[in-house]
């Protein structure tokens, strides 16, 4: 059957049919699936030039409780190794060099979280919490969310909130933190998801988060020079004790029936905070089913951020005259261009296993200061590249 035919007639009839009450269910698909899900994921993240490597093992379990509730458990184990930047120094000509940690870091993090979801006809309530631990960092958090459908499930309002309590116990004692300090973060989200038509969906979210306490990085250092470019002080990273950040997301999803039910996902995110960091992300991905359970997802992304008010690669002056200072490359102005590919194969199976889904993906990132929107002349000393490889297995019973 050829596709280059009078598709418009069918579309017009279909539109008229979908206007009939009780015909538009597909766009808001049933949410309570009484299935047991098991997800196991492995991820490998590696930065260029002997820097950080992270291996992540993640497993998630979803267990139904009756036909209106589900419980979810998630376990994550990360192993981090490699060197990371500690400070920047500058030579007599003012040229900046990044200095890496000599000893390679070796850290492990374990996290467990659990949540319970209760599904009503028009709404979903979720509550959960988690605990994460590594040798110098512990975090406890709680979250709750509410989503409410309106307008025959074409519109969904999402509200959520979370709070996290972190304890930091640095292994070096010469930071402001001393041997123990704390940090608290509260976050609230409000969002609307709107089904535009049978093939398109628009999602918007606004998130506000407020962090207070020790927000510096106890392992980062800042070098102060005097007016003659002579090193005077090596200080510990010092950031404000509160951070308020706003983040917005606009996501558009368009299904393309003629392309074998492919879907375009287009995301735009922005963030702004009282540290002066503004960021923008554009993320495009194309989800292309290939038949026989195969799907390929190419993705491109551009991220740009402006530097924090208190960031300098190196400082001139003295710490006592400077309220806050950081040379952490993550607070600098930069851009990241990335591209990736993910391949999924779904094998349908007979009972008791309903299906088995295999995923493998790779994403390559190029982090450069000159990729910052509007340009950045701070030089290439902090530039690096990294990649992320993921493989996962998803089982549904």
């Amino acid at each position, binding site marked *: 059957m*050829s596709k280059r035919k009078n*598709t418009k007639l*069918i579309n017009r009839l279909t539109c008229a049919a979908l206007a009939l009450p*009780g*015909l538009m*269910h597909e766009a808001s*698909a049933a949410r309570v699936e009484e*299935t047991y899900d098991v997800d196991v994921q492995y991820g490998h993240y590696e930065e260029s030039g002997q820097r950080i490597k992270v291996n992540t093992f993640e497993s998630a379990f979803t267990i*139904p409780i009756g036909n209106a509730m589900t419980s979810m458990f998630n376990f994550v184990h990360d192993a981090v190794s490699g060197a990371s930047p500690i400070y920047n120094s500058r030579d007599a000509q003012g040229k900046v060099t990044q200095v890496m940690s000599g000893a390679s870091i070796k850290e492990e993090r374990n996290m467990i979280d659990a949540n319970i979801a209760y599904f009503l006809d028009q709404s979903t309530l979720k509550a959960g919490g988690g605990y994460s631990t590594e040798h110098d960092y512990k975090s406890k958090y709680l979250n709750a969310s509410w989503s409410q459908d309106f307008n025959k499930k074409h519109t969904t309002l999402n509200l959520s909130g979370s709070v996290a309590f972190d304890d930091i116990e640095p292994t070096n004692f010469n930071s402001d933190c001393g041997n123990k300090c704390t940090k608290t973060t509260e976050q609230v989200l409000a969002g609307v998801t709107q089904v535009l038509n049978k093939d398109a969906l628009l999602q918007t979210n606004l998130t506000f988060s407020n962090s207070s306490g020790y927000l510096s990085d106890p392992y980062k250092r800042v070098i102060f020079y005097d007016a003659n470019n002579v090193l005077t002080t090596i200080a510990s990273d010092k950031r404000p004790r509160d951070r308020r950040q706003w983040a917005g997301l606009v996501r558009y999803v368009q299904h393309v029936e003629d392309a074998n039910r492919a879907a375009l996902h287009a995301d735009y995110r922005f963030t702004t905070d009282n540290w002066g960091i503004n960021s923008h992300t554009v993320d495009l991905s194309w989800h292309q089913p290939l038949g026989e359970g195969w799907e390929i997802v190419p993705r491109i992304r551009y991220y740009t951020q402006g530097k924090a008010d208190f960031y300098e690669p190196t400082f001139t002056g003295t710490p006592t005259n400077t309220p806050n200072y950081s040379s952490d490359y993550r607070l600098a102005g930069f851009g990241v261009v990335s591209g990736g590919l993910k391949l999924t194969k779904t094998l349908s199976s007979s009972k008791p296993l309903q*299906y088995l889904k295999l995923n493998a993906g790779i994403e390559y990132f190029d982090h450069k200061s000159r990729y910052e929107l509007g340009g950045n002349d701070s030089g290439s000393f902090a530039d690096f590249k990294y990649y992320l490889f993921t493989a996962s297995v998803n089982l549904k019973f």
Partner: protein
Amino acid sequence: MNKQIFNFTFKAMGSPCSLQFYTVSHQHAEDIYTQILQRITELEQRYSRYLETSLISEINRAAGTGRKTSIDQETFALLQYADQCYRESNHLFDVTSGILRKLWHSQQTSLPTSSQLKDITALIGWKKVKWNQRDIYLPLRGMELDFGGIVKEYAADVVATLCLKSGIPSGVVELGGDVRVVGALPNGDGWTIAIRDPRNPEHLITRFKLKSGAVATSGDYERFQIINGVRYSHLLNPKTGFPVTGLQAVTVIAEQCVVAGSLSTIAMLKGHHGLAWLQTLPIAFLCCKNDGQLINQLGV
């Protein structure tokens, strides 16, 4: 969770119907079946032209009296759908053409006279109907509205949505030969759909599997009459007032049963041009020509 299949057969809208789906408990199955039956009965009570108390009968009784009949949102949507079919079919699909049955009922032994035809066709014409979101009015006494070609198929779609809303991902509903799949079998396979031979209903022309969507057939299967040895279809051309000829039956696969139903009906109404019209559409279909030739473009 272990799911088992439940099978219900019942009679609705003058036809034998069946409903099959997978769920966990007998109680859940019964609850869903009851809910579905209630909704189908509701549609029948509102839109059947055979029931004196139906909305359709009320609209028809008010024809030519100057009295408008109030309608609800569902009825308005059905009228809009009927209007779309009318426009897409070059005015062949006309919900006011049901009145032609008066000339072509099954006890009929002779052809209608030309004056009978003239009188009746004067009462046909969707364009004459005055309707809007709030009310409808048939301007001529004797005019009739008939959703016969739409409501049964629409009901199949409504049933599928009700199943999905009740957490039934796997099931199939058949209402008098029109089929709507709720979702594939739990092992991912499609449901087997069999198409009967229009001239020999005990015999199957083809069978195929369908994972999603709907199948509707329009043809002179049961409802027809033989006058002077000629077999006349129950499908009537609103312009000529005569039964259509050219095709014995048309089966169409579409996402919604109501769309599959109207496409197969329009193809039948187009008679000898029906096959060529179907071939211009990006759809899977099966067409039985009058000479018995089978055009199978189901592609499944």
